[in-house]
């Protein structure tokens, strides 16, 4: 019996591939029970915008080839992904990797503060679906402790790093003076709110907020002194903004490259910075 980690992340696969293997929180319970039933003794499936990782306990050492196919079969994407996109870690290396992930060392934004919560959510979801057992319960609780200790005892968590912070920093690496620019925030959730605050601290000129449920957008707009845009009228708003930050998870694409190209013409090619913090914002092809 051994502990394994099969995964795909921002270092091993491009966004188009990661997107295909992204499991939404509604899909996860079905996938967990299906995999548990057919293949693994214990398992936890983590799926964020930068990684999809399957931690599992298995009797025999299975080879990588068939494993990645098992995972991609859940999304019917065996033909779009390739074995080289995946990594398979065993025993000690799998454990080390998990500790690295919960500590934020493995994140795209070093020291990311959100990953620990995402891992906790993934783990509790697996627990709720009776997918975990003695080994993984022990392993994950230890990993969370490691993550917490890394943040309190080392300097990795200094400056409250997150994708929201990085998105705001990225905006100020593109535009010289944010006071002259307007940002459009798609999604008024926690990540969206955090991003708005980081942008505001860099003296952003104006902010527009759009959310599926308008009420939430109005609430956030009130605290940030911004305006609300109807979710259906997003495309029109692209004429008025220079920064678009999306933090919604969506099964359908919100913006299409074709439309953005069109918009760039009416904008006179003024730069438009679009940053998607979650999967499902833009269809590139």
């Amino acid at each position, binding site marked *: 019996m051994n502990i394994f980690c099969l995964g795909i992340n*921002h270092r091993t696969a491009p966004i188009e591939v990661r997107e295909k293997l992204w499991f939404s929180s509604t899909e996860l319970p079905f996938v967990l029970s299906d995999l548990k039933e057919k293949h693994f003794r214990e398992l936890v499936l983590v799926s964020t915008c930068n990684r999809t990782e399957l931690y599992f306990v298995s009797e025999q050492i299975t080879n990588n080839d068939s494993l990645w196919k098992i995972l991609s079969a859940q999304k019917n994407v065996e033909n779009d992904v390739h074995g080289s996109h995946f990594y398979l870690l065993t025993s000690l290396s799998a454990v080390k990797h998990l500790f690295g992930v919960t500590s934020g060392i493995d994140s*795209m934004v070093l020291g990311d503060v959100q990953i620990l919560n995402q891992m906790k959510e993934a783990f509790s979801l697996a627990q709720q679906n009776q997918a975990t057992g003695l080994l993984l319960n022990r392993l994950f609780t230890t990993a969370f402790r490691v993550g917490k200790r890394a943040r309190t005892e080392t300097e990795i968590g200094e400056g409250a790093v997150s994708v929201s912070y990085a998105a705001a920093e*990225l905006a*100020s*690496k*593109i*535009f*010289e*003076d944010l006071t002259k620019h307007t940002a459009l925030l798609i999604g008024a959730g926690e990540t969206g709110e955090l991003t708005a605050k980081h942008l505001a601290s860099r003296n952003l000129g104006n902010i527009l907020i759009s959310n599926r449920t308008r009420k939430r957008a109005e609430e956030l707009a009130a605290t940030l002194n911004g305006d609300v845009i109807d979710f259906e009228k997003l495309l029109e708003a692209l004429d008025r903004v220079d920064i678009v930050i999306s933090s919604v998870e969506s099964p359908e694409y919100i913006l299409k490259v074709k439309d953005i190209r069109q918009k760039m013409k009416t904008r*006179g*090619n*003024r*730069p438009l910075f679009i940053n998607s913090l979650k999967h499902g914002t833009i269809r590139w092809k």
Partner: protein
Amino acid sequence: MRFFINLFEIILPFSYFSTIWVYAKAFFQSKKIAETVKTPLLYLTLTCHAVYIIIRTVEYNHPPITTIFEILSLIAFTVILTYAYIEIKTKNKSTGYFILIFPFIFQSISSLFIRELIEVPQVLRSYLLGFHVSSALIGYAAITISAVYGFLYLMLYHDIKSSHFTVVYKRLPNLEMLERMSFTGTLFGFILLTIAIVVGFIWLPKAIENFSYADPKLIGTMVVWFIYAIGLTAKKIIGWRGRRIMVLSLIGFAITILSMTIVNMFFSGFHKFY
């Protein structure tokens, strides 16, 4: 006097080298001491170079524009002077290493090969020539700086696009600023080059007996001028921005360098006095 001129010819390349070395230390390794020392060092080098040019002009009784090596030294001086101005104006001190590499190269070549003309041709003593040469020189310096900012823009652009955040991302200012600096450089360069060309066309046929419009140097300069003209038109009329304009700026610079070096070395024409 001659002793000091020779001394400065040796000191200057080293002075430039230590300046860029300190700027590099500050950029790539964020060394505290380098951060504090770099700007005073920049002014020291700038002062040395100014003194060198003044005593050279006084001693030989003509501005240092009679040979390509004198001109290279003058371009180096113009670049470092402009950079010092940019540092004061933008309060951004991070790009020095990339800019100052050029005056270092120019000055080193100049120091290695510079010789005094025994007899300066009469034609090189005209004031119109001084005007022609100085506008061309400042123009070339502006183009050099524009190209460096264009290059830095592309590096930062690449970092952002590929989500691969290197030291370039951490230390450089923003894309908009780099684009603006590059554009200002191009605009200045273009205007000054235009002046140099116009003055050249008025003055050259009168001053030089074997003047020819098919001279390689003239053609080279015209090609450079057209590339920048196309770039500026594309920006103004078609609305090109960002990366494309920066690539054009780099192409313009490459052809400028080719025109200055290859043409000067391998072709003979009237535009050569040494």
